[in-house]
Every structure is written in C-alpha cells, then in structure tokens.
C-alpha cells in the first residue's frame, strides 16, 4: 500500500504561533510537480486485465436477448453479468433502487449491462463490439414535465423521488394581499441545466481478490467507505474482508462521491470472476456520457416586496431532475431547498421542492449540491425585484441581507459568524461596483448613440459593458441530523518512529486536506505540520470519518482531529512530565511512551453540538452549525454582433471563519468561481434521445486560461466558535455566486435578463433581436 510519509525536515512550526494561517508548501505537491505521483492508471499489476463496460444505447426498455457473437474469438475474455454478482445486485446508497448491472430492465442510456475483461486493452475493445443486446423499447420519460404528468411510471406512482416543504410565517396569505399600497408582486422562473464535473482524471479503479476471500479495490475516489459499504452488499462480504484505498485522485468535485461505488463494483466483479486483478479506466467519451451530473433545476419564485425593496413574502417552487435512480437526489434537494431563500430576512417564506425521475443517466453530487441551483434563482430574482422597483440590485441586497440574530426559513437563529454584510460591502468597495454601475450605464447609452451615427470602436465592434453582483451563503457539514447519523470517527496515533499520524477517511483530491489536517494537528500538538504523517485513506487502515463532501472536511473532521490531538497532547504531557519545544522533543517523548505502553491513539467520534436541534419530519431547526458567506461581482463585455460575453474581472469576498492555509483557501475560491463561470457561460449538456450528444471535450466546453480574467479574492475571517481555529466551510461556497453575478452583469450591459444558464451566445443574440424588434 502506498504510504504517505511526511517529507519535512522542519523541526519547528512555520511561525511562533504555529502553522495554521500560514501558507506552507502543499505537502504532496512535490510528487505532483515531478510526475512521481501515482494516479490509478499509472499503476501496473502483474497479470492485470483491462475491463470495459457494455452499456445500453437506448433510454428505456426491456432486455430480451444478449448474444456474444460466435464469430469472435472469446478466448481469454472474462464476461460478467448480473447473475455473477455474489451478493445483492444493488449499488447501496440511500435507496436500493439502482442495480450494479441491469438485469432485465433498462432505465437510462449508458446503463451498464455486461462487463468484459481481457489482458489486452485492444482485444477487450473489440469484444465490446461483438456483444449484441436485443431490447424491447419502452417509452422514455425525458423531461420533468413528462415525469410529473406520470403517464409512464418510473418511480412509485408519482415519479417523485422526494418532496420537501419548508414553511415559516404565512407566505400564502401575504401573497394574496398583494396590491396593498406600497407593495409589489414580483414573479419569475429560473432554469439551470446539467453540468459535468469534468475532473481531468477520468474515473478509474483497480480491483483484486485477496487471499482471505475478500476484495482489495484501489481507485480515484472521494469516499472510500461509500465504496466499502457498496462492495459489502454486492459481494455479501463482511467489513473486514473488503478493503478500499484511495489512490492519488485527479479531481472529484462530487463526481467521485458516489459514482466510484459503481465502477468499483464493476472492477471487483470482473476480478471476482476472473481471479485476476482488473483495471477499469474510463475514456473521456464514456465518462461524460455515463457518469453523474449536476441536477438540472427550474425554480419559480413569487415574492411580495415593499417599495423600498424589503422582502415581505416568498413562495419558492423548485423542481429538480434526478435522472433514472434515486442516488443522492433527496439530499441534493434538501440542501437546495434550505438555501433557496438566500441569505436574506423574510418572515413569510414557503418553499416546496421536488426531485423527479426521468429516463436519463442518474444525476448526483457536484460541488454546491443543490445550493448553486436554487441560489441562482434567488439571486436572479433579487435583480428582478430591483428592476421592477427601479432600485440598484445592491440596495435590495443591503435591505435584506441577514445579520446576527436573524432567522432562516427553517427557523434557525443565526447566532454567530454572519458575514453577509461584511462580504457584500468589501466586494462592492474592492470592485468599485457603484461607480461602474453608473459609468457603464452612461457609456452604453453613448455607445448606442454613436453607433446610430456611424461611429464604432477601433475594431469596428458593437460592445456593451456591465457589472453584476450576487450574495450567497452555504452551510457547512451534513444537513440537519446528518452528522449525528454519520457518527464519524477520526483518530491520531503514533508511528513506531515516534511521529503523530492522522487516521481519517477524508481524501486529498486537490483541495488541500492533507496539508490543512497536518497544520491543525501539528499546531495542536506543538510540532511542525511537515512532521505529521497522514495515512492513506484506506479502509484497512483508517476509521470512517465520513465522506469528503458537504464542506465538512476542515470544520467537522478537522475539528475532531484537533480534539483528538489535544487529548493526545494531554496524555503525552502527563506521561512525559513536560512539554516539548520541537519535533525531536516530541519524538523522544512519543517513543518513550510507546516503549512503555506499546501504543498511543486518540480517537474522537462526532458529538452532536448541544445547541443544535433539527426535526427531519417538519424540516425545522438548525440546518447547519454555521453558514459561510460570499459576495461576488463580475464585469463583462458583451459583443452585440456575436452574443459573446467576455469576462473582464471577477471580485469576491468570502467569509470562511478562518483560512487555515490562505493559499489553499484562495485556491478553492478561485477554482470554484471558474467552475461557476463555466456553468454560467459555456457548459451545456446536449441530449439526443436521452443520450448525451456532446460527450467529447471538443464539444463539452469548460473554461481555458484565456476564458477567465484575473480573479481578485479577499478572505474575511469571522470566526465560528465551534470550528477548529474558527474555521467554517469553504469548498462549495465559491460555486454559488458567479453564475447569477454573470447574468446580472449581462443584464446591466444589454438590458436583457436571461433567466437561465448557460447564457449561450445563441440565447443572448436571440433575446437581443427580439428585444430590438419590440
């Protein structure tokens, strides 16, 4: 098993105050910049076979017959189908509806049916073409409207995977009273499409049978224990016979949260049947076509507002497309619903959210997990309110943004660390938003006048500029009682050499888990971060500290590790009789302890915070321990001849409680923002008969370095008393603001409000022509 050893020669922490808050060199970056880091496809194992997946080419049907072409030489080809599954044919997650391999029914295009493996990758590729599957076609359900009409039933008798209601006050009555002097009714419908996570490393797994009759599965993944649980079910194996270990992972963003259970199960099944190690590495075409995507959404918002912009009532109706199986839709819906009213005060809020089934590949986790979708709607709606009331969008945010003591739609009192106004004002100041709103408005009028008189810019273009704004928030950790249910466990022990070693299932997927854990534990133990080892997230070696998702890694798991470290420090200090002043000192004390007691291990299980309470039935209470806040401005230049939007600048302030490592935290913000910008302008999943049409990188467009401008990021630290060193969550928050800020900027530049993303040039040009005609 590849082990991560600390490389550092440092004997003392980065600064007299420790290394938290200092941007030390990322601990595993050396291997990454030299090409030495081993990703799954870099691994070669003797006797290894290459595995491939035979998939449905139709969206819905019944499998009638499977024929392996007798003219093909099947020697050496392992073939596995659902009958070969030793345990239950299910990918265990929330519900048990998704099979590991389709048995009789096909519920979506690219659904896996058969698995093939051979020593030669070229041979198994040919074998794929020698499989014929006869399918009786059934009518697919390809839109959420069709799903709700329920003429074809895909799930129970409504096609609704989950419905959630959140109510505070009495929105219905308030909206009926619209028309009362000084109030206005504002309505809008907002849409977001699918988005592919597009980690640059495709999904990849390597599975082998172990001598004790079990399985060892290694791969590119975010949550080793999710895969572990799924394999136990599919193979009928006890926990100790299944071992899942993470290899260096080239990006996840949620796309490797639950999907690895599927590909891991497939590699394992081929290894089970063939008795040989089996590697499955998707190529890009397969990965885009077959794996999970961001849930598309449509959200209708009706609001009653005061003339000064105050929100009096909100009625929000959310529809999400879950695809063919439940997977994580209930949880995505939950987070989306809870965030749907944005970081604003509104006494009367009614939220209804539904996730429905369609005959498309199941959607799943993608950074933000429902909150980008619903906050896109709310932020666009706040702009609509501003337009209707002839106020600046900033005014409407200032009027309604929450402060300490305000109450959310679920009835949660925001008791501390509420940075909404802080991030808003800092972003506005840094970006010169107010001056630019005025200036661009004037320049655009002047440009239009000049063009009518036959004068254009130096390149003969017709362009307009604008600046837009968004304000968002994001709860850290699992929703409601989720963390309690997870009951995560994290530990620290001492290696034989006398070094502290972190034992957790939290994976390094680029975001900096390894480094910030080492910094936090190092500070808690009084040693340099480089001195702390971080064990590979391998279920054979680490406890289940929960999945690497939900912006919980630093705040929740990091918090548990800091507690464990403090306990270890107390134990070791008591034994040693003194503190240590550097790493060698710690090492000496630790080795003495081991010599006397054999082992030293401090473990912490997640404990519910006494001040938090949540009711899953009524959806009321404290949804998260704390929220992080962000504001973002985006400046654009729109070319009226082509509908293209050029990003001129992005400015943002993010309140994350505490930046454990400022460079890594800023890196998370910058990366998330660019994913949000891509979602806003470029990323569009196109469908043909329920299949992804643009499943190549030439056709699924993500931003290049030329597509995005300099990013100006300010970190605001309003500490959370329950977060390690004051830290809250940062991983997903950056995804929430950019898209509505872009739409807002385009509206400012052109006068056109496009209520959906991506704002493709085709859409913008069409809307512009229609507006010009009218």
């Amino acid at each position, binding site marked *: 098993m590849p082990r991560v050893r600390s490389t550092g020669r440092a004997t003392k922490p980065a600064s007299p105050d420790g290394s938290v808050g200092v941007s030390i060199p990322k601990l595993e970056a050396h291997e990454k910049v030299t090409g030495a880091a081993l990703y799954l496809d870099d691994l070669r194992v003797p006797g290894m076979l290459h595995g491939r997946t035979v998939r449905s080419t139709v969206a819905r049907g019944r499998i009638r017959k499977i024929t392996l072409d007798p003219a093909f030489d099947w020697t050496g080809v392992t073939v596995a189908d659902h009958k070969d599954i030793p345990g239950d044919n299910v990918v265990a997650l929330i519900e048990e509806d998704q099979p590991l391999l389709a048995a009789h029914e096909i519920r979506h295009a690219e659904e896996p049916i058969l698995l093939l493996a051979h020593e030669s990758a*070229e041979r198994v590729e040919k074998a794929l073409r020698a499989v014929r599957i006869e399918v009786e076609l059934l009518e697919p359900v390809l839109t959420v409207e069709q799903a709700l009409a329920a003429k074809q039933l895909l799930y129970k008798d409504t096609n609704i995977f989950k419905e959630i209601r959140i109510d505070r006050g009495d929105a219905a009555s308030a909206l009926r009273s619209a028309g009362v002097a000084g109030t206005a009714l504002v309505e809008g419908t907002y849409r977001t499409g699918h988005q592919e996570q597009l980690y640059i490393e495709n999904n990849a797994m390597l599975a082998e049978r172990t001598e004790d009759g079990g399985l060892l599965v290694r791969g590119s993944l975010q949550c080793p224990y999710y895969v572990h649980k799924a394999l136990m079910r599919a193979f009928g194996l006890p926990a100790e016979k299944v071992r899942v270990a993470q290899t260096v992972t080239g990006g996840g963003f949620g796309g490797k949260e639950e999907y690895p259970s599927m590909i891991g199960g497939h590699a394992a099944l081929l290894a089970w049947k063939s008795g040989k190690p089996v590697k499955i590495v998707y190529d890009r075409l397969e990965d885009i076509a077959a794996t999970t995507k961001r849930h598309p959404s449509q959200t209708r918002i009706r609001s009653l507002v005061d003339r000064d912009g105050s929100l009096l009532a909100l009625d929000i109706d959310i529809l999400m497309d879950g695809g063919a199986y439940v997977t994580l839709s209930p949880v995505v819906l939950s987070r989306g619903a809870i965030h749907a009213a944005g970081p604003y005060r509104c006494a009367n809020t009614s939220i209804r959210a539904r996730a429905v089934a369609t005959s498309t590949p199941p959607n799943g986790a993608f950074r933000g997990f429902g909150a980008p979708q619903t906050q896109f709607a709310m932020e666009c709606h706040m702009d609509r309110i501003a337009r209707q009331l002839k106020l600046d969008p900033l005014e409407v945010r200032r009027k309604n943004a929450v402060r300490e003591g305000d109450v959310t739609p679920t009835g949660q009192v925001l008791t501390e660390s509420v940075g909404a106004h802080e991030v808003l004002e800092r972003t506005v100041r840094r970006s010169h938003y107010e001056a630019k709103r005025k200036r661009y408005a004037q320049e655009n009028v002047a440009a239009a006048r000049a063009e009518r008189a036959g004068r254009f810019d130096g*390149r*003969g*273009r017709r362009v307009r500029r604008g600046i837009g704004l968004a304000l968002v928030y994001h709860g850290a950790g699992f929703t409601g009682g989720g963390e309690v249910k997870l009951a995560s466990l994290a530990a620290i022990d001492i290696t034989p050499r006398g070094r502290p070693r972190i034992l957790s299932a939290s994976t390094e997927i680029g975001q900096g888990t390894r480094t910030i854990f080492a910094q936090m534990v190092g500070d808690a133990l009084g040693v340099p971060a480089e001195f702390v080892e971080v064990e590979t997230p391998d279920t054979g070696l680490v406890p289940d500290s929960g999945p690497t998702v939900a912006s919980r890694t630093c705040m929740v798991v990091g918090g548990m590790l800091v507690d464990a470290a403090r306990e270890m420090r107390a134990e070791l200090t008591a034994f040693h009789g003194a503190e240590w002043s550097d790493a060698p000192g710690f090492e000496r004390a630790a080795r003495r302890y081991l010599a006397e007691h054999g082992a030293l291990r401090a473990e912490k299980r997640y404990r519910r915070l006494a001040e938090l309470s949540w009711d899953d039935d009524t959806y009321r209470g404290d949804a998260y321990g704390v929220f992080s806040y962000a504001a973002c401005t985006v400046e654009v230049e729109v070319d009226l001849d082509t509908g293209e939007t050029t990003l001129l600048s992005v400015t943002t302030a993010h309140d994350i409680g505490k930046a454990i490592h400022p460079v890594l935290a800023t890196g998370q913000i910058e990366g998330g923002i660019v994913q949000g910008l891509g979602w806003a302008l*470029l990323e569009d999943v196109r469908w043909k008969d329920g299949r992804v049409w*643009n499943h190549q990188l*030439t056709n699924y467009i993500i931003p*290049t370095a030329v*597509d995005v401008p300099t990013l100006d990021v300010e970190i605001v630290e309003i500490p959370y008393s329950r977060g390690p060193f004051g830290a809250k969550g940062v991983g997903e928050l950056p995804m929430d603001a950019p898209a509505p800020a872009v739409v807002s900027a385009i509206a400012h530049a052109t006068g056109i409000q496009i209520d959906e993303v991506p704002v493709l040039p085709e859409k913008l*040009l069409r809307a512009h022509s229609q507006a010009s005609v009218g």
Partner: protein
Amino acid sequence: MRAALGELAIARPKTLAEALAEVDPKAHSTPAVPIAGGTDLYVYLNAGTLEAPRFVDLWGLRELRGIRESGEALRLGATTTMSQIREHPLLARRYPALVQAAAEVGGRQIQNRATIAGNIANASPAGDSLPALLAYDAIVQAKSARGGRTLPFESFYQGYRKLALAPGELIVAVDLPPPAARATHFFRKVGTRRAQSISKVVFAGLLRLDRAGLVEQVRLAYGSMAPVPLRARAAEEALLDEKLNAPTVARARAALERDLSPIDDIRSDREYRRQVAGNLLEQFLRLAAKRK
C-alpha cells in the same frame, strides 16, 4: 470505439517520390492515408471513426517544408505548421488574416503540429485557415507519381469533404499570390470559447477601395456556413464598384443570404450563424470604410 492502433501500418518514405508511390492507386489496392501532424487523424482514430489499415508519414519530408518566395508568390510547403505561419515575419506583414487564423486554430500544442495541407485535406467546413486561403486566392500545388498540377483553392472542394484531388495526388505546397496593396484585411472566428475551440462561424475578408471610395476589389470568405468553405459571391457582387454606404451594406447583407446555407449542429444553430455571418460582414465593412 477506439481504433486498434497496434494493428495499423505506416510507411516511412524518405523522399516525396517514395511517399507518392505509397499513395499511388496503381501501386497499391489500399492506398495509404497521408498523415502529417496527426491533429485531426488521431482524434478520429480515438473516436473510432476512421477505418484505414495503412498510413504514410509525411511529417519528416524536407520537400514539404519551408516557406519561400516563388516568383511574386509566397510558397508554403504542405507541412508548414500553424506555428511556423504565425512566426514568419513576411506572412504577418502580407497575409495577416492567415496569421490570425493560425493563432486561433487551437492551443500551442495543436499549432505546433497542425499543418496547412492537413487543414486543407481534412476538409472540414469549419477549418480556420480555409477562409483566409480563399480571401488570398491561394493556389494548391499537387503532385502524383505521374506529375504535378495546380488547383485554385476556390475550386478545391467539390462537395462536403470532397477534395478535387485525384487518387494518388498529394498537396505539396500552397502558393499565396501577392495581395492587393492598401487593402483592409480581416479575420474573425466565433468559436465555442475564446481559445482551443471549433468555429461556429469563421470569416475572412479583404477589401480595397479606389481613390473615389468605390469598392475596387473584395473577397468575402466564410467557413462553417455551408458544406464547404466558400466565397460569398453574391455579397461580393453587391459591393463591387459601390460606395460603402448604408444602402450598399444592407444590399450586401441581403445578398449574403443567397450565398450561405448554415445548419443546426452540435455546436450551434442556423439562425445564430445566419445573424452572426451578417454581423461580421458589417463589422468588416465598417473597418474597410474607415480606411482611406
């Protein structure tokens, strides 16, 4: 389904004559597919859309490289890369539209390997350099085992991805005649993003006004607007000998509708293309009108 690369053969000629022998249908029942930079061919092989057992490697042939003057024209060897086009000072001065096209073909990695003949032979209607070659009245030099001939680039495509090359012929060079002096050169590609993208609409224009301000010479060349890259002749006709005023521009734009036949495809739709094509024409004419 990826092609089985392990089963493919490739001939490695040391001279052009040897290469021509490899593609000669009289010498081989399965003539070899020529490969230079491979930036299109390997994409097809990866996607499994090219079934060809035999290739011939042109990349290293010295006879196909180099940019030199040939009489009054500039002759680009067939395997001149987009990077070489970008970096050639004479090209930048005389044929800016082609140089700009070369800079937008893809990222650096693609530009270092993509060749001018490859762009022509791939015959995608979206090929970025092709409208520029049309605007500059490029001439293709072709050779076979039996001799050579000259083909004007404007009649190089007989239909969608159908080259006017006879079996056994290879493109060996592309000649660029001297362009008109005092002309406005224009190139614009509207792609799926700002870099590394396939074009939705690509346009190259050349226009010269006489001393009276009348259009003396004009070339309007489009890609991604028809099954082949082409010159918008009706629009050119509407401009010739006219002053560049609003009525002329409107007539040219209306005439454009007769020249172009955009489609809906994976990247864009016909209405968008139609609008943008007309808008780019107008942008070009605005610039041309400013030049005295």
